């Protein structure tokens, strides 16, 4: 989980360098969300596999649980970023 933080911070810096056109704002957010989802779910899967091998005698469910945690986390972040953006828009208006 700790590895996700630098990933999220690096992408906005690239955005700042070349400021995206306004119509691409939403698309960029979606891209980030998807990448986030992939990274976090894969991380969760990894943790799950390790746990299942180490602790649960190679059962399947710890892996699934890990994936679920990762995906859920990604979803939540995406959601919060979108809402933040909506709030900013409302403030501007």
């Amino acid at each position, binding site marked *: 989980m700790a590895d996700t933080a630098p990933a999220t911070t690096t992408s906005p810096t690239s955005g700042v360098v070349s400021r995206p*056109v*306004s119509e691409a*704002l*939403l698309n960029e957010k979606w891209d980030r969300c998807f990448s986030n989802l992939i990274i976090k779910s894969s991380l969760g899967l990894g943790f799950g596999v390790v746990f299942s091998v180490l602790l649960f005698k190679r059962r399947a469910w710890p892996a699934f649980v890990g994936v679920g945690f990762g995906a859920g986390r990604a979803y939540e972040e*995406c959601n919060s970023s*979108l809402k933040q953006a*909506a*709030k900013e828009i*409302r403030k501007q*208006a």
Partner: protein
Amino acid sequence: MLRTSIRSVRALGSRPAAAVAGRQWQASAARRAVVSGQRFYADDKKPLVDEARLPAAETLTAPTTPPPPPPQTTPAATITPEQAPLTPPAPGPAVVPPPPPPVAPIVPKKKGFFRRLRNFLLKLVLLGVLGFGGGVWYSRINDNFHDFFTQYVPYGEEAVLYLEELDFRKRFPNVANRVTGRRADTASEQVSIPAQSGASWRVADGDHAGRQSSGVAQKVVAAKDAVKDTVKDIVKPEPAAVTKAKKETAALPKVEAKDAALEKKVKGVEEKKEEVAVIPAAATSSKPKEFRAPDVNEPSVWPPASPIDPLSVPHADDAIVQQLVHMLNDIITVINYDGAADKYSQTIWKAKDEVSKVGERILSIKSAAEEEAAKQVKARIDSFDKHANDLVSRLEAIMLAQEQQWRQEFEAEVERLKHNYDDKIKLIQEREQKLSEQKLQNKLLEQAVELQRQFSRDIKKHVEEEREGRLGRIESLSRAVSELEKLTTGLNEVVDTNLRTQQLHVAVEAVRASLEDAHHPRPFIKELVALKEIAADDPVVDAAIASIHPSAYQRGISTSAELIDRFRRVAAEVRKASLLPEDAGVASHASSYLLSKVMFKKQGLAAGDDVESILTRTQTFLEEGDLDNAAREMNTLGGWAKTLSRDWLSEVRKVLEVQQALDVITTEARLQSLKVE
């Protein structure tokens, strides 16, 4: 007591006795009888009623016959409150019907049973009769029970009515007779008048007979009154004579008063009036006690002698005579009051004569004195007249003489004055003539001088005019030359400004060309700088250039084709976000994205405020080349849609600003050229 009285009042006041039908009246009367009790046993009165049958032997004037005793009208309750039952007795026995039950047909075989049946029947009948009788009796006492009894018990009403009627007839045989007699047509029955109700001269005892309150009795009373009146008339004539005499005495002083008024002596009249006032008073007060004609049974008496008349003297205007008369009249009134007129009448007559004689003598003396005085007055008046006439004639003569003298003096004076004034007028006229001649000569001289002066002035003027005309021409020439010089310089300026405006036009055209023919955005800063230099410091041009955003001329502005192309991209993105709610999360974004793919697209100038129609309209405007309206439409978007289209909008705005600035500068240039012309 209270109860019975109230009941009696109710019984009396409930129905007017005369107006109700006979049967009912009887019933009510009977009830009243019940109320007032058994005091009226008519047995005592029967002899009185018998007596009332017109006794022929009795005389009208017999005073010894005693008045009939007043009828006893004090009603007393026969039922004391102690005796009156508080509650009506149970109607049980009364209700039991008299007809015996049909038990008879059952014939018993035993003797004992037969006897028992008979006994039972007997008891039953006895009880029934007793109960009925009791009910009838109690219904006479209690009103409520009466109503109940008469209504519910068979034959009850008849029995009670019969009993009441019987009772009523016992109490009022007269009324009962009359009421029943009317039905039975007892016209032959004679009307009886009691002895005391006949015609009599007595007044006081009249209404004893009428107490029975029957119509017959009232009629009798009326008849009695009539008779009494006739008797009075017979008795009257004797006192009438007395009153007549009294009236005459009262009239006498009135006549006297009239005479006095004719004489018109104010004082005398006033005093006389007093006297007159006194005399009638005396007359009325001296009236003896009312003479009553003796009654038939009294011994006859002579009427007393008429009183002495008070004295009255004609022409009694003298104070002394008046006093005398007054005194005498006082004496007369005293005598009259005493009733001793018979005794003193002779003396008084003599005194009266004396007084009248004295009065006459005084009158004669007075008239003699008056005649003498009149004679003296006449003589005086004559002498006065004569003297007055003398005086008047003398005065007139003196006045005439004076008047003549004054007139002569006046005429002489007038003559002298006239002469004086004539002299003065002549002198003045001569002087006036001299003065006027002198004045005329002066005027002539003045005119001559004036004419000479005018002539010299005219000549001078002519000379001056000639000279000034030439000088004026030279001056106008020089002025024309100077104007020509100015014109040439102005022309130079015009040419200069013309050049400048042309340059301005060219510069503007250059800027426009550089904007239009570029396929890519290109900075036009050079053209703008040139324009600014050419415009020197025209404030309008400066302001227009300042209004353009610096980034516009540094980077250049996008062409319309580019704008349209970019709009297509922007529109696609905006459509994706067109269905987003206010506070949208991932799920709503995803759903908006999916649903926007399914949405129908509109065409042309679609109406509505939703994102899709706004986009359609903007596209239409863009296709028409109306950038301004397109920008306006896009500006109405809100939320995510606005955020997404922000960059495009700013781009369009820049283009619009530049276009506006160029328009302004062109207009300014045209204005300048117009000014020059």
